[in-house]
C-alpha cells in the first residue's frame, strides 16, 4: 500500500466518540437540525420538483461552464469589477496578496469562504505580514482555537458552549466560567465591530454568481459579509468556477432550497447581491479552478460540482454525526467532502470514501440531487485500483473472490458456517478482529441451509 501519512478517519472518529456524552450531544444537535430541515421541506410546495429543477439547472451550468464563465466575466467587467483567473490555490493567494499590497493594506476581514480555507489563504497572508480575521462567529471561534471548521455551515458545531466560554476567557478576557451563548456572542460582536470599522479590505466568498448580470450573492445569518463589504475600500470575492447560475431568475430556485436544506430556515437572514463598486471603492473577483476542471473531466464524479454547500448531507449522515467533521481531515467534511477530497489528493484522502455505510441518506437530502453514495462506491473502485488500500485487505479480497467464485472451493472451505467465520473479513474468529471488541458473532449452527435442503427438500422431490 502507498503510505499516505495522515491519521485516518477511523482513528480520529474513535477519539471523538471516546467522550460519549459529548458525542451524543453532537449527534443530537445535528439530528435536531435534520428534523428542522424535514419540517421545512414538508411544508414547501413541490419540494421534490424544486430539487429536480435545481439539479437540472446545475447540470446545464457544468455542461456549459465555458460559455457561462465568459459571459460572467464580460458582465463583471462591464460593471467595473476587476476579474482574475486562478488555476490553483497558490495563484489565488498570490492574487489576493498583490491586490492588498498595491494598496498597502496589512489587515483584512473575511466572511465565510470555504474556498479560502481550501487555499490556506490566512496562513499565506500571515506569513507575508497581513492579518486576517474571520468574521463569521463560528469561524471566528475556530480561528481563535487555531482549528479548521468542522462543518461548512456550522463551523464549531463540535464544540460545546462551555468550551467556547473557556476559549473566550483565555483569548478575549471574559469572566471564567461564562458560557451563556448570548453573553458570549455580545463579547464577540464587540470585538468584531471594531474589526469591521478598522479594516480597509474585506474578502467574501460567493454562494451564487449570475452569468447574465455579473452579480454575485452572499448568504449569511449574521450580516458579517455585509458589514465587511460595505465598510471596505477594497472588496474581494473568491469563488470557485462552479458557483454560477445562468440567469437571475434561477436564484428563486436556489435561495428557496439553500437555507431550508441547511438549517430548516425559509431563507438566510441576509441574501446580499453585489454587483458594482461604490464610488471610490474597488471590487475584485477571483475565479478559482483548484481541481474543479479536473473534476469536470471525471465523468462519474462531475455531478459533485453541483454542490451548493448547504451541509444537509453532513447533518443527516450518521457517520458524521457520531464521529464529527474534523475526523474527515479535509476542508469540506462529511459525505460531500468524502467525494470531493479524492479528486484533490487521492493518497491523502483514500480513507474517506470508506468512511460511510453507503446508507444513502445523503443523496436523499441533497437539494441538487448529487448521487453522493453512488459516488462513494465508485471512488472505492478507483482507489482500490490505484493501489491505495492496505495490502492485507487486497489479499483477503482475492482469497474471498477465489472461494466465492467456485462452488467446489466454497464447499471445500468448510462446512456449516465455518467458511464464513474463517474467511469473511469481519467474521474471522479471533480476538484481534475489531468485530469482537464490542460485539459477538453467532456461533454457527449445526448445518447450513444448503446442507439441510439437500437432506430434506431434494429427497422430497425424488
Amino acid at each position, binding site marked *: 500500500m502507498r503510505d499516505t501519512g495522515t491519521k485516518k478517519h477511523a482513528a480520529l472518529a*474513535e477519539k471523538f466518540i471516546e467522550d460519549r456524552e459529548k458525542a451524543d450531544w453532537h449527534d443530537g444537535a445535528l439530528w435536531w437540525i435534520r428534523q428542522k430541515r424535514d419540517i421545512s421541506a414538508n411544508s414547501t410546495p413541490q419540494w421534490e420538483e424544486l430539487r429536480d429543477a435545481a439539479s437540472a439547472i446545475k447540470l446545464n451550468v457544468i455542461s456549459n461552464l465555458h460559455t457561462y464563465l465568459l459571459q460572467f466575466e464580460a458582465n463583471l467587467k462591464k460593471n467595473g469589477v476587476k476579474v482574475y483567473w486562478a488555476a490553483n490555490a497558490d495563484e489565488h493567494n498570490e492574487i489576493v496578496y498583490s491586490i492588498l499590497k498595491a494598496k498597502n493594506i496589512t489587515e483584512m476581514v473575511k466572511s465565510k469562504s470555504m474556498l479560502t480555507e481550501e487555499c490556506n489563504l490566512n496562513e499565506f497572508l500571515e506569513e507575508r505580514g497581513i492579518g486576517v480575521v474571520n468574521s463569521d462567529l463560528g469561524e471566528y471561534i475556530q480561528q481563535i482555537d487555531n482549528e479548521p471548521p468542522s462543518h461548512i455551515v456550522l463551523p464549531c458545531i463540535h464544540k460545546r458552549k462551555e468550551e467556547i466560554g473557556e476559549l473566550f476567557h483565555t483569548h478575549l478576557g471574559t469572566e471564567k466560567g461564562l458560557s451563556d451563548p448570548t453573553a458570549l456572542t455580545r463579547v464577540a460582536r464587540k470585538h468584531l465591530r471594531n474589526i469591521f470599522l478598522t479594516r480597509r479590505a474585506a474578502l467574501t466568498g460567493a454562494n451564487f454568481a449570475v452569468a447574465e448580470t455579473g452579480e454575485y450573492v452572499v448568504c449569511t445569518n449574521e450580516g458579517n459579509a455585509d458589514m465587511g463589504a460595505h465598510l471596505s475600500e477594497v472588496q474581494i470575492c473568491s469563488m470557485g468556477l462552479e458557483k454560477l447560475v445562468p440567469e437571475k431568475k434561477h436564484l428563486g430556485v436556489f435561495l428557496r432550497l439553500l437555507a431550508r436544506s441547511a438549517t430548516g430556515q425559509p431563507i438566510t437572514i441576509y441574501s446580499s447581491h453585489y454587483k458594482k463598486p461604490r464610488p471610490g471603492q474597488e471590487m475584485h473577483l477571483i475565479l478559482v479552478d483548484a481541481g474543479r476542471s479536473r473534476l469536470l473531466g471525471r465523468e462519474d464524479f462531475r455531478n459533485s460540482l453541483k454542490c451548493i454547500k448547504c451541509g444537509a448531507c453532513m447533518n443527516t449522515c450518521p457517520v458524521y454525526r457520531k464521529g464529527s467533521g474534523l475526523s474527515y481531515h479535509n476542508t469540506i467534511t462529511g459525505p460531500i467532502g468524502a467525494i470531493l477530497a479524492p479528486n484533490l489528493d487521492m493518497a491523502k484522502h483514500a480513507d474517506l470514501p470508506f468512511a460511510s455505510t453507503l446508507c444513502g441518506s445523503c443523496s436523499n437530502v441533497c437539494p441538487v440531487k448529487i448521487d453522493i453514495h453512488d459516488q462513494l462506491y465508485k471512488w472505492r473502485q478507483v482507489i482500490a485500483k490505484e493501489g491505495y488500500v492496505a495490502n492485507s485487505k487486497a489479499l483477503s479480497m482475492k482469497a474471498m473472490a477465489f472461494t466465492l467464485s467456485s*462452488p467446489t472451493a466454497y464447499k471445500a472451505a468448510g462446512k456449516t458456517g465455518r467458511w*464464513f467465520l474463517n474467511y469473511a473479513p469481519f467474521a474471522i474468529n479471533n480476538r484481534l478482529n475489531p468485530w469482537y471488541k464490542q460485539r459477538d458473532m453467532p456461533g454457527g449452527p449445526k448445518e447450513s441451509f444448503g446442507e439441510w435442503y439437500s437432506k430434506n*427438500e431434494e429427497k422430497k422431490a425424488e
Partner: protein
Amino acid sequence: MTVGLFIPCYVNQLYPNAAKATLQLLQKLGVDVVYPIKQTCCGQPMANSGFEHLSQGCNELFVENFTGFDYIVGPSASCVLHIKEHLHSDTAPEEATTIRESIYELVEFLTDILKVDKLNASFPHKVGVHQSCHGLRGLHLAKMSELVGEPFSKPEKLLNMVQGLELVTLDRKDECCGFGGTFCVAEEAVSVKMGKDRVIDHTKNGAEYITSPDLSCLMHLEGILHRDKSKIKIIHIAEILNASI
C-alpha cells in the same frame, strides 16, 4: 410460477432458520421454489470494499445458477440490491439483464408480485422494525424520511397481517445501524456507536424483537445485544411471517 431461491452466503451459513422460513413461506403461498445448490455469494463483500473487478467470478456463477426462473427471490435486501445494480456477465449478458429485472427481495415479492393481503401467522410480541438502508433507499420498501411524499411501508403492511403482533414506534425510524460491510471492522468505533444507538431506540420504545428484511444489519445488532446481555432478540421478517398460529 417457479422461483429460484437466492440465499446469501452468510444467511446460508449463520442463519439457516431464516432461509427455511423463506422457503416454507413461499411454499405455503403456493409458489414452486427451487434452491440452486451451487450458489455462493452475490459479490457485494468485494465490490463494496472497492474490489468490484474481483467479483466477476461471482457474477458468472450467479448467472449460471439463476438463469431460467420466472423470478428470483432472496431474504436479504442488501444482496438483492447488489445484484439489481451490479450484476453483469461477459459470456451471457442477456441472461444477466433478465436476472437483474426479475430478482426480488422477499418482502417486495410478497407485496408486489404475490399481492399477499392476508397471512395465517401469529407472533404475539412487540416488534421494532429496522429498515435496512439498502431495502429502504435502494429497493424503496418504505417511504424514506428524507423525501417528501405519501407514507407507506411494505414490511409494516405485512407485519400488520400477523396476529398479536404490535409494532413499536421508534424515535428515528430509518437511521442506519452502522453495519456497512467491511465498514463494521474498518470503522469499528463508529459502527458500534451507530449500532448501540439503534439498540437504545428499540429498547427505550419497548421492543421485544427487532426485525428486518436484512440479516446483515441484524447480525451486527445481535452482536451488540448479545455482548450487552440484552433480552431483546433479533428475528428475520420471514420467520415472523412464517410463524404459525
